């Protein structure tokens, strides 16, 4: 399946890659000695591509995410965005974090307005755009609530809207749907996919959910557990436009089974290792 023809050819007159990782390695010094969280990972992302990174818990996905986002300065290897080596947060990259990241002191609409406020967008325009994206993530009517009055999944949707409103060229998301129930996850996945296709936004999604990865992605990077290496890159050759209905097709099932085969090995090794450590 690695050799299947690519579904999204690079567009003429554009750089072939918007984002590249070259031999990216990150070691942590822990009490039990050095820990290689990300081990020599290289890959390229094409413009407009939807790429997922999947791997078992603790394999280094968030570490990789932070490196690409320019938040981790002391790593080995390079990240290149638009041919430019990343040395800090890059203006083309928008991030949605795994942890709770809404501002508790701001209402939903003020949270979503935040990046526009920083960019000095006039107030009326700011509110218009924010409402549009709040609507998109299904939170209309909650504009004036504070995050403490929302569920965990709703807060995560606020965080997604806050990043989308800045319309980044490259969207990085670290398990953005993890706190959502399966139905909301599928529907929100459709929405994100729809935006991504409309804006031709390059998207990198970090997840441990196989269905989600196959539903949304052009390609999936499968990571190994300790050290966090790249195990395989799987091309997902399902027709677009896709909706969550694709989930019930036989081809979809075949992809899920294949990736599960890869992950099962890693996940069970991960579990065995953490049990031995205990």
């Amino acid at each position, binding site marked *: 399946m690695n050799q299947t023809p690519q579904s999204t050819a690079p567009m003429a007159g554009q750089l072939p890659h918007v984002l590249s990782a070259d031999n990216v390695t990150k070691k942590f010094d822990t009490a039990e000695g050095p820990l290689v969280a990300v081990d020599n990972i290289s890959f390229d992302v094409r413009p407009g591509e939807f790429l997922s990174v999947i791997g078992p818990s603790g394999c280094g996905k968030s570490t990789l995410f*932070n490196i690409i*986002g320019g*938040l981790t300065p002391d790593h080995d290897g390079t990240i290149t965005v638009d041919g430019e080596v990343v040395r800090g947060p890059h203006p083309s990259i928008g*991030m949605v*974090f795994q942890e709770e*990241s809404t*501002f*508790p002191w*701001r209402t939903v609409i003020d949270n979503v307005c935040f990046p526009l406020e920083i960019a000095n967008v006039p107030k009326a325009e700011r509110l218009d755009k924010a409402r549009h994206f709040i609507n998109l993530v299904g939170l209309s009517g909650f504009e004036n609530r504070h995050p*403490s009055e929302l569920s965990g999944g709703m807060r995560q949707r606020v965080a997604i809207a806050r990043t989308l409103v800045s319309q980044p060229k490259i969207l990085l998301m670290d398990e953005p749907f993890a706190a959502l129930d399966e139905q909301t996850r599928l529907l929100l996945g459709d929405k994100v996919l729809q935006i991504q296709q409309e804006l031709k936004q390059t998207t990198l999604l970090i997840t441990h959910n196989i269905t989600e990865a196959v539903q949304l992605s052009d390609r999936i990077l499968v990571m190994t557990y300790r050290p966090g290496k790249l195990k395989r890159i799987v091309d997902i050759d399902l027709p677009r436009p896709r909706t969550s209905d694709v989930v019930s097709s036989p081809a979809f099932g075949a992809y899920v089974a294949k990736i599960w085969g890869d992950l099962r090995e890693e996940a069970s090794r991960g579990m065995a290792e953490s049990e031995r450590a205990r």
Partner: protein
Amino acid sequence: MRAMAASSARFLPAAFGLFCLLCGVAIVEGMLRAGLLNRFIVPLPTEVIDSFGRLFGDEQLLARFLTTVQETFYAMAILAVIGIPVGTLLYQVPVLRKATETWISALASAPIVLMYPLFLVIFGRSPATIIVMGVIAGLPPLILKTIEGLSGTRQSLINVGRSFRLTRVQMLTKIMLPAALPTIFVGLRLALIFALINIVGVEFLINFGGLGQLINDLAERYDMPGMYATIVFVILVSVLFFFVTERLERWLRRMS
């Protein structure tokens, strides 16, 4: 039914507390009347209560109270303007912080009121001496709480700021200070209580200004019931301040 149970659960502790207080007062009254306590030193609680009318009339208790409140208000305004920026600065400059934090903690627990002769020499018997003493008393807890609040900002919120490429100043004003606000407010509350104690204390010591001076006056005139009544009044004022600021703080916490 449930509403009644809930409201009784809320008022029961307060009612019990009041009941205990009244019992205590009744016991003291009984002991005084039975001659077990010296009436010359401890006045009858009923006399204390009776003297309130006289205090509000002849001694202008309300005006005294307003003087003290005004001094406290000025002290708090100065405190906020100095304490929060100083705390922020110490947080931003680790060397400064490491050099001074222990001293500030030590000062927070020192009887700062003893410094009053210094300011008496500088400012004389004036509101300035009283206000400055209030400020100095409130400063250490406010600075410490400001530092604590800023250091406690969640990493994920800082990361959001970094990913949107905020400047240092924006990071501070748009993320760290708002995130620290509930903790800073705890600092302001502590500062208020410390300042009030010191303001009344210095008023007493330099015999100038509001409630503290009144206590001093009444003691010198040997008006024991009046003096005790004023002390009770000061306690009620602190309770009121405590209560109001606690409500405010809870409201702030709900926002965050």
